[in-house]
Each structure stands twice: as C-alpha cells, then as structure tokens.
C-alpha cells in the first residue's frame, strides 16, 4: 500500500508540474461539450454528451500518461516493487485526472444542456465515479500495451473505446435514470454492471500488466 501511495504521489507531482494529462483531457472535453451543445443542446442528450466527452477526453489524456515513464519505467521494474502495484498506482492517478475533468465540466453541462444536473448532483456522483474508474482501468491497461509504439496517441482511442462500450452504455443508462429523477434503486442494474466491469478489468490489469510491459 505504501508503494502505491508513493507512486501516486510521484505521479501527482509530475502531473502538477506538467499538467499534461489533465490539460489535454480538459481541452478535448471543453471542445466536445461546446461542439455538442452547439449542435443540439437537449436535456435528453446530456448523458450521451457527458460520456462521449469523458471517453474521448480520457483516450487523449491517457495516451500521454506513460510518456514521462518510458525510461524511468525501467528503474521502476528493477525496484523491489510488485509490478502490478505500478498499474494500480497509474489507475488511481488516471481516475483522479478523470474526476478533475468531470468536476470541471459539470458546470458546462449544467449551463449548456440541463439544469437538472445540479438537482441530482449527489446521486450523479456514483455513475460518474464508477464510469470514471472504468475509463481508468481500461485506459491504463491499453496505455501499458502501447507504451513503446510511436502511434500510441492514435492507437489508444481505437483500442480503448470499443472495449469501453459496455461500460459507457451502463454509465449512460445510470446517468439518464438519475437525471430523469429515478431513485438509485431503479438504476442499480447499470451501476452493478459498471462495478462488475471495473472489477473485471482491474483484475485483468493487475494480472497482465507485468506481461504487457516486459520486453
């Protein structure tokens, strides 16, 4: 656990200095929200607009994630640290980055799409957090897979988004229900699906990370 905290603290310090991931995610998110709102700012489209924004923002931001690690990663692999913890730490960092972008973009969705965002903010936190975690576990896994490739910026969305589809559908389902005023119990099936998706890919990441980054 202390190794995970140490790695996360290092990642956050690097991100604070470069702001590379949050800035690239944030700019893509801002662009998408404005374009989608300009095209059709309807309340019923809010969940789709939100998750399209987060998914593409994450795909762009995560591609930068291992850019600072390409060489130091070798030192991490040599250190007496369980290699799966490197994956766990990256997931935590990426999840925090997604949460920052989600929090920063909510006022835009509230202003440009529907004010009901504000009324359901506490309930919305659950699908946002679980869906954000889905993006982080899958995005980190595929980022590790393509860390040594030159076209990683282009490859990551292509690899990540199709795999993310079940989680995105569930996240949109839960968000739609909550914005329509349904109780959490009514959207529990979507939330359970998101939680299961997160567990499945987090386990896959922990088991596969060492194989993916070796050689």
């Amino acid at each position, binding site marked *: 656990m202390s*190794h995970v905290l*140490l790695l996360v603290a*290092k990642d956050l*310090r*690097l991100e604070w*200095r*470069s702001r590379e991931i949050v800035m690239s995610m944030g700019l893509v998110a801002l662009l998408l929200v404005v374009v989608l709102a300009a095209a059709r700012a309807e309340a019923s489209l809010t969940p789709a607009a939100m998750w399209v924004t987060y998914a593409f923002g994450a795909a762009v931001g995560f591609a930068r994630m291992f850019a*600072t690690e390409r*060489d*130091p990663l*070798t*030192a*991490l*692999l*040599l*250190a*007496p*640290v369980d290699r799966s913890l490197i994956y766990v730490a990256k997931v935590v960092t990426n999840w925090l980055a997604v949460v920052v972008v989600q929090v920063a973009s909510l006022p835009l969705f509230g202003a440009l799409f529907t004010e009901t965002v504000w009324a359901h903010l506490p309930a919305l936190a659950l699908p946002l957090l679980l869906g954000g975690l889905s993006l982080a576990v899958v995005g980190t896994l595929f980022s590790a897979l393509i860390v040594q490739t030159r076209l990683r910026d282009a490859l990551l969305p292509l690899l990540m988004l199709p795999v993310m589809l079940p989680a995105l559908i569930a996240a949109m389902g839960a968000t739609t229900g909550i914005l329509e005023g349904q109780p959490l119990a009514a959207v529990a099936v979507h939330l359970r699906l998101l939680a299961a998706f997160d567990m499945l890919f987090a386990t896959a990441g922990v088991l596969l990370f060492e194989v993916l980054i*070796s*050689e």
Partner: protein
Amino acid sequence: MTGTGSAPWAIELAGVTKAFDYRPVLRGLDLRVRTGEIVAVLGANGSGKSTLLRVLATLIRPTRGTVSLFGQDPWVVPDLRRRIGLVPHESLLYQSLTVEENLRFFAALYGVAPARVVTVLEEGDLGPLAGRRVRILSRGQRQQVDVARALLHDPSLLLLDEPFTGLDLDAAARLASVIRRSLGARTVVFATHDPAEARLLATGAAVLRAGRLEPTAPPEALDEAQLVAGFRGHRS
C-alpha cells in the same frame, strides 16, 4: 573472469541466447564473473551489449540458456533485483523532478533511509545540483545522478551501459572517479565500445561480436589491434 576458482560467482551465464522476432541478438553466451570483479564488455554498436546488460538486470528473459546471479536464478528469486543497480544508456530519471526528489523517490521505493540520499549526494559531488530539475542538467551531470540513483540501495552488482558515451574528457574523468570511489566489493559489468574506457576501470574484459563472446583476458593484456579487429569483424 571465465575459468575456475574458489571465489563465488556473481554472474554465471550458460548458453544464453536472446532473440527478438526470431532474430538472435545473443547467441549461446557463456560467462562467469567473480564477486568483486569489474568486467568490461566491449563490442561495436549492435553487437548485443545492451541486450546482455538487460538480461543481467533481469529486465528481459533469455530465449534459451540459464542466468544465475549470486548462485540463484533471478526469475525464481525476484528479490535478487534488490541487489542490482543499472545505469543504461538512456537516463532513468524523471525529468520534471529535481535531483533530490528523484533520489528520495527511488530511496523510498527501495526502503532506503533518507539519510542515505544525503550521503549519495555528497559522495557523487552532487550537492550543488540537488535542487535542480533533471531536465536542465547536462548529459554528464545527468549521468552522474543516474549513477547515484543506481548506487542508492548499495547494490552488489552494478551494470553500466556505455557510461562515458557523450561526455567530454572532464565529465568522463569525474564520472570515472565517482564510480571508482563507490566500487567497494561490488561486482561491476560495464558495456563500452571504447577499449580505452575498458582500461580505465576494468579488471577483466570480454569482447562481444555479433552476439557471441570472444576469448577474454585482463583489459591491459588486450591488444588494441585485437579489439579493433573484433569491431571491424562485426561490421564487415
């Protein structure tokens, strides 16, 4: 280096072959290095020196053959990694962190007391650079910090990949001095393409040509012409 003796072996390679996409880079290497020995692995670009060091660092597994470090298989006993320090050709430091932040981070990963960071900074003459970000350091300074990082946890085996490449004479002399001061009873394997560098530090040498190790000797006994012929042989 190779041969028999009562000293325990720090490194024993037997029939090590490493292939990438079915193209062998190392071909059936046998190598034994005694504990405390400083061995230079000489070879031209592309001869497999870096791959050999990465195998020794347990970063890549050989396609065939066995690797033993201090009498144990490093893939069976992963804790052996704690005893290895690696300085590859590229810097392993975080460019946006300061020298001291880098060293403190790696010290914490290895469970090394923070006081050791201060010692390593002093021993490496890095005190004036401690607060500078790695990004703004010269290649020579970065190399010094990388060596300090690799020595933080007092490794029994130090692996250096072309440590003097790209350094001017002063920087190379400073780095050689830092490395020499830190040797102790450490086993050191360093890759180089320069016979003069081999003579600077090594007590034993091996010539790697097209993935195969040539017969070895103490570096001072190696004839310049023999080494040069080895390099040309690889390139032809």
